[in-house]
């Protein structure tokens, strides 16, 4: 169970708090693992996130604990990301990757000795990469999932579940169990990673459509996040805009009250961080992401650290944003840190003003929900973890208006919430489904739906399978789940690594169809199956009968008896 929060600890006294701030970090990467190659460029996405984001966030948490600073954050750590972070092959590769970066940084330290400002930055990277190597191996025992889990057990972090492979649930085959299966497998993955039931759920891309609220209610999920207009456009009109959750009308399965609560994103706080033009990350003192020595220095010099011998990002970046043009000045860490502190103070000040303004119009303290992609902090915005650290400390010591809480904390303090049906919505561009359904990617849905139908039909029909057939059907489901990752449609829409996304979609669907054909014709190729199981090895505990469990669960039956969230 989520750690209970004593309402008087950490200043969480309802009567004194003017406003609540709930920061939600959504950590997700698609499942990318290619043991068939010695190295694979797209695996770098994970390695970069570990170095730039996940280890720095854990460092922030450790520093707060060391200094006895109270804090409360929410985090989603999606199943594909958790699977990669606990995969031996990928963690071995990360170890080699970061050790190689330490080596690169050492060479840079030597190369820049005669240029003191540059040399200082090279030393910064050497120390940073050495710290990452040490933290990964010696502090966290190569298991960052367990590291984050420890903060949940300690009571500071609430980790929430998400869909199995981050499938975009509103576009699953209507009338079939696709969305339910994504949710069920995602919750099981959460249980195995964190040893408890999740209270909250991150809908991928905040993509909501009825009856997802019913599906979540049936599975005991007490709350989920949404885009702003899921609540702003809810019926009937909620009285507090996005500054209080609503509760879905669909009751929990045990009749214990209304359905999951919906926590909508606050656009004001989002814009200050996310906006490419107005947000903090674009400040001229911050590190420039694109000026990397992988592009700037002599090719033969950097080649040993480039994947597939193609110029790319190494992680060693010496310049600050400086301005809108191509002219970039050297990065100055102290100035950047000072700016992060300033921006943290600015963010806090704006939330205080916002909370005081809203408090006068509400019957309870307003809640400001601020969800962000976790990878923003440290990867895209190098100083992001510093900003977060400053913000948490300033909230703890420099003011009394705001309190950091999680959505579960809110529901524990406020058991009466307005009931309304949320609107279909997402946090993608346009606010609905267009990012995942447009002319660049709409072709995938007939194939995804056909695969869903085939796997579902076989799962219902096959009784008493042999162990080999069971494995084949389970791997077919695994391939289907991997094909359903919303990341592929997103990438096609963003027109970035399109060929990779198309290939992943085609391969997983082809493998799925082939396995189903082999089951139907009683011709399972065990060697081929074993090869797929070893390469596409997400959810090793998965069994295809989860499809049957989903179908057997009617809308009126539930498997959990959660604590009521609304009377």
């Amino acid at each position, binding site marked *: 169970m989520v750690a209970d929060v004593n309402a008087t600890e950490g200043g969480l006294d309802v009567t004194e708090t003017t406003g609540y701030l709930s920061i939600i970090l959504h950590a997700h990467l698609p499942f990318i693992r290619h043991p068939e190659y010695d190295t694979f460029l*797209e695996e770098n996405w994970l390695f970069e996130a570990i170095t730039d984001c996940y280890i720095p966030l854990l460092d922030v948490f450790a520093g707060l604990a060391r200094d006895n600073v109270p804090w409360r954050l929410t985090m989603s750590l999606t199943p594909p990301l958790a699977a990669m972070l606990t995969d031996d092959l990928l963690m071995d590769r990360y170890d080699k990757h970061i050790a190689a970066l330490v080596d690169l940084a050492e060479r840079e330290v030597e190369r820049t000795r005669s240029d003191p400002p540059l040399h200082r930055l090279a030393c910064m990277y050497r120390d940073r990469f050495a710290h990452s190597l040490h933290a990964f191996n010696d502090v966290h025992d190569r298991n960052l999932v367990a590291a984050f889990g420890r903060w949940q057990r300690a009571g500071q972090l609430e980790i929430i579940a998400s869909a199995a492979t981050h499938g975009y649930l509103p576009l699953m085959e209507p009338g079939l169990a696709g969305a339910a299966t994504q949710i069920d497998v995602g919750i099981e993955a959460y249980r195995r990673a964190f040893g408890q039931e999740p209270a909250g759920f991150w809908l991928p891309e905040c993509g909501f459509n009825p009856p997802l609220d019913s599906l979540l209610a049936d599975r005991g999920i007490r709350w989920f996040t949404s885009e702003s207009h899921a609540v702003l456009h809810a019926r009937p009109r909620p009285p507090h805009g996005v500054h209080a959750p609503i509760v879905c009308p669909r009751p929990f399965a045990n009749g214990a009250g209304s359905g999951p609560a919906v926590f909508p994103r606050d656009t004001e706080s989002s814009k200050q961080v996310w906006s490419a033009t107005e947000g903090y990350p674009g400040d001229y003192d911050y590190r420039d992401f694109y000026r990397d020595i992988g592009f700037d220095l002599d090719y033969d010099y950097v080649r040993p650290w480039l994947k597939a011998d193609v110029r790319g990002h190494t992680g060693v970046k010496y310049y600050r944003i400086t301005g809108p043009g191509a002219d970039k000045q050297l990065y100055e860490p102290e100035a950047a840190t000072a700016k992060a502190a300033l921006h943290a103070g600015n963010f806090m000040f704006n939330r205080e003003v916002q909370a005081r303004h809203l408090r006068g119009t509400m019957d309870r303290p307003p809640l400001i929900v601020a969800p962000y992609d976790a990878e923003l902090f440290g990867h895209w915005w190098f100083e992001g973890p510093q900003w977060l650290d400053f913000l948490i400390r300033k909230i703890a010591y420099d003011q009394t208006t705001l309190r950091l809480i999680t959505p579960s904390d809110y529901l524990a303090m406020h058991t009466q919430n307005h009931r309304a049906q949320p609107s279909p919505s997402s946090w993608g561009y*346009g606010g609905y489904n267009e990012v995942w359904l447009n002319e660049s990617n709409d072709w995938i*849905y007939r194939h995804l739906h056909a695969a869903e139908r085939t796997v579902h039909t076989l799962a219902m029909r096959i009784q008493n399978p042999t162990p080999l057939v069971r494995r084949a059907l389970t791997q077919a489901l695994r391939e289907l789940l991997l094909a359903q990752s919303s990341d592929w449609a997103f990438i096609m829409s963003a027109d970035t690594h399109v060929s990779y996304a198309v*290939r992943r979609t085609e391969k997983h*669907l082809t493998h799925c169809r082939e396995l189903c054909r082999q089951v139907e014709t009683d011709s399972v190729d065990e060697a081929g199956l074993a090869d797929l199981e070893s390469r596409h090895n997400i959810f090793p505990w998965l069994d295809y009968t989860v499809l049957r469990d989903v179908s057997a669960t009617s809308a009126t039956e539930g498997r959990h008896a959660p604590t009521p969230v609304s009377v």
Partner: protein
Amino acid sequence: MSTSPFEHTLASEGRSYALPLTYDHSFLTLLPKDPHCVFAQWDIHESHVPSTPAKEAGAFVLRMYDIHVPLNGAENGEASAPSDTNSAADVQPFVDFPVSPRHSMYIRLTEPGRTVAAQLGLLDEEFIPLLTSNVVTTPPGRPAHADESWRGAAGARGPMFQVGPAGAHWRGESRGRAGSSDFAWSRT
């Protein structure tokens, strides 16, 4: 993220993962795109099409229904798809779009928050429905009025389908008439 030299790995794998053009299953599915747009995709297996002059003439139509009146006694404002008979046309306003047997298209709606369904069929002297879709309700696209319940406002409304390239509007009439050939649709 770093750019990918993925093409060389594709060439080295040496096998095709091309997906089939068609499956054995006939289907008609609607997916909501946004408050004003629904995506329809379909494929009808030839064996599921009766031999008629309309089939020989390739006179397939996608009939889009505007469901604002609950069908089949559905409660709580929930709509159900039209049954596979022409009686649906007597109850629900509809619009016909000439289509081919396997295709997809985006259909723009004149208003958000509408409940729609579709049938794929042959149109000759009468409409022969062959496939029926799921029911989709598009998002409301705006905050609720003070007196608007979450079940939605009932009542007849005006024409709702609008198809065409940007700036060129065609409005289907509520009692159904095949639309003009000036469609905007996407091919798969």
